[in-house]
């Protein structure tokens, strides 16, 4: 068993599923649709298997480095996209989701990391897994909301009229992801108090977590109508702020002052 092989296998399944989903969008509820869902489900299971395999070989949760969080993010994407397809009866997101997952998996393949088994004492906490898992789930929901908004805007620009279930998708994913984002913030505060002595220190990472959370308060309070310009543009613009919090903080001049630097 080889980490690269498993990841490549999962990426192949997701890619094939995404292509079939794109083809199946021309003929809904066909065998192509079902095959697409099956392949995406298999790809998701392969990614879950990879996370479990890494956990067993590293002897710690594989949630410490940027690459490991990218893997977890890629593992959440198919689950949430399949849930959205089942719950809200729209398959709009399956093909683009596969593309996004492939992008993150490709990033991992292009930027290999040293697989360090050591986990610093501050991360040896019962809060570690819930904090990161919930945050990655939130990021996946918000990332898919942004992706759905982008797809809908592109389709609108081409004159395609989408169904109500598709138009409501960005907002629905926001409402799914925002409580998870809040939970990640709250769990982080409880953990910080026991690990560092303070529940909030305006650390650059914490500040950007607050900024990304605060941004999503805007569409939340606006009571937007599904499919409106604001209902599409606000989710679209939110995810770059999330990406800045996730990756960009490490590039700031203040990054050295961050207690979250163990993510590198």
């Amino acid at each position, binding site marked *: 068993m*080889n*980490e*690269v092989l498993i990841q490549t296998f999962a990426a192949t399944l997701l890619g094939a599923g995404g292509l079939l989903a794109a083809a199946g969008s021309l003929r809904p509820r066909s065998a192509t649709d079902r095959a697409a869902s099956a392949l995406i489900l298999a790809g998701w299971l392969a990614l879950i298997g990879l996370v479990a395999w*890494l956990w067993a*070989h*590293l002897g710690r949760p594989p949630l410490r480095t940027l690459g490991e969080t990218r893997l977890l993010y890629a593992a959440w994407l198919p689950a949430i996209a399949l849930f959205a397809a089942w719950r809200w009866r729209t398959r709009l997101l399956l093909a683009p989701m596969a593309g996004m997952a492939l992008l993150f998996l490709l990033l991992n393949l292009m930027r*290999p*990391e*040293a*697989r*360090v*088994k*050591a986990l*610093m*004492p*501050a991360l*040896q*906490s019962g809060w570690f897994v819930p904090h990161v898992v919930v945050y990655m789930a939130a990021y996946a929901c918000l990332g898919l909301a942004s992706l759905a908004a982008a797809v809908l805007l592109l389709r609108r620009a081409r004159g395609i009229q989408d169904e*109500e279930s598709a*138009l*409501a998708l960005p907002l629905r994913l926001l*409402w*799914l992801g*925002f*409580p998870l984002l*809040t*939970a990640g913030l*709250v769990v982080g*505060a*409880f953990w910080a*108090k*026991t*690990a*560092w*002595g*303070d*529940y*909030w220190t*305006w650390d650059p990472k914490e*500040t*950007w977590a*607050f*900024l990304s959370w*605060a*941004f999503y*308060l805007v569409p*939340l*309070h*606006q*009571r*937007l*109508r*599904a*499919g*409106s310009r604001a*209902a599409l543009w606000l989710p679209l613009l939110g995810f770059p702020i999330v990406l800045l919090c996730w990756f960009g903080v490490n590039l*700031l*001049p*203040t990054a050295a*002052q961050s207690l979250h630097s163990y993510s590198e």
Partner: protein
Amino acid sequence: MDDRRPESVNPNTGGRPPGYGEALAILSGVLLGLLAMHALQAPQLPRLEPLPAALATFLPAGMALLAGLLQPESRAARFFSGLPFSLTALGFTAGAALLGSLILQNPSPEDALRLGRAYPLLQRFGLTDLFRAPWFGGLLACLILALAVATGRRLRTWSLRNAIFAATHLGTALVLTGGAFAALASRSGQVRILEGEGTRTVRLDRGGTADLPAELRLAAFHVEPYELEVSLTDGEGRRPRRTGRPLPHLVPGANFRAGDWTVSCLEAIPSARPQLSLVPDPAGELVLDLRLEAHGGAADVTLAASMGVRRLAGGLVAALMEVPPDRMPEAVNRAREALDMDGAPGLAILSDGTDTRCLIRNLDGFTELRQGTHAFEPVRFGALTLIPNRPHRARITGTWLPAEGRRLQPTAAARLAATRGTERREAWLAAGPEGADPLRLDAATALLLLPPQPKRFRSEVFLEGRPATIQVNSPLRLGPWDLVQVGYEEGPGGRAYTVLKATADPSIGPVYAGLLLLLGGVVGALWILPRTWEAP
């Protein structure tokens, strides 16, 4: 397509309620006024006792909530609880926070110098300690005002929707008000205790000291290191290479593949604290025993004059020299030049049979130890400590040869053997706080020892005669203080200093309650309540 519900007209007061323009004007005025006051007076946040601090924070917030409850339709209540004021206040706060994440906060003197002429300007407006600046507190106060009034207005009428609204907004207001309370009333600082000693002193972050309710005595400090790990990299030792599966820990006997090579670990020292022991050799040759002691591991290295210069773990070079009689001063100078030229930490032992000198070059300069002239003191090479413990007398042979190498402050080392066909390479790898030198196997393959890390460290303390343990993620409560294990340092005589962070924060109850209310409210609002704006 209209994005929002139509604006409402207040039947009580008539006219259009204040909008974003008015909110922007008011908040800009408040912010500019506070910034101007800060520039003129540079105020500091006062330190208050808990009761006055609570009155200064929770009382105004409570009054704002009551105002919303009792006068919900007043112009002020509608304005302060309305979206224009709330979202504008949020925007201002977010903008300030964004600035705080881009500008170095509480910069060191070196960083301040690097900021150049910008530093006095930034400091004047409180931008270098932004999150503790009163004007930032003013922005948070505007947010608290909006949340409290909005909560009060919703509490007039019971419904599930209003209750969930109140939970989210009251929760957020509690968190922010608790934060303000903590800024005024909390104390935090550091407690540093040497093994075997006790203290009641907390060195406060804001200057001065405070006393713990009882003496805290550090009976013992334990550090458990991780086993060593190595990383496979490109030939320059810079970029990691894929390995297919994580490499095993470096323990003697461990084997793994690195590209075309098979690598075996021969010795591993997770954390190096050597003791230098000079012993007489029965054959009359000077033998130097260097013992590298680890927390849980050790390795012995023996030097003999016939070995010439040896490179020990982490680039430490060592050599024994026989010196002709009466040529000791010249030999010492030559050895000193050779060690200086090499640049690496090293030691040279010179003897003419009666006079023996130990010349040690550490990173700060030279130390010369002479038999019988004074007690041998421990000498530090970064994280290595050499503790000579016995004088000796012997005749030695050998010559001094300068060696090549770079400086390191090693704290861990491993000896690896790599084979590829008939090729065999054997070398020590070392790593420390300043990094590590890679072992280059070929143009595409190198091995890099990863910096050693502690797996666990804990303080075994006595508190009022009772034993207790403080370790990371497991703080100790002592009166109003929470003691959190944050680090440790090496102290004299092989003992350790434990470093604890002490915080006394009376706001923790309201903040935790606020966080739980906020989370519950958000889940209720978005996952439980039916949404009324779905249809386009």
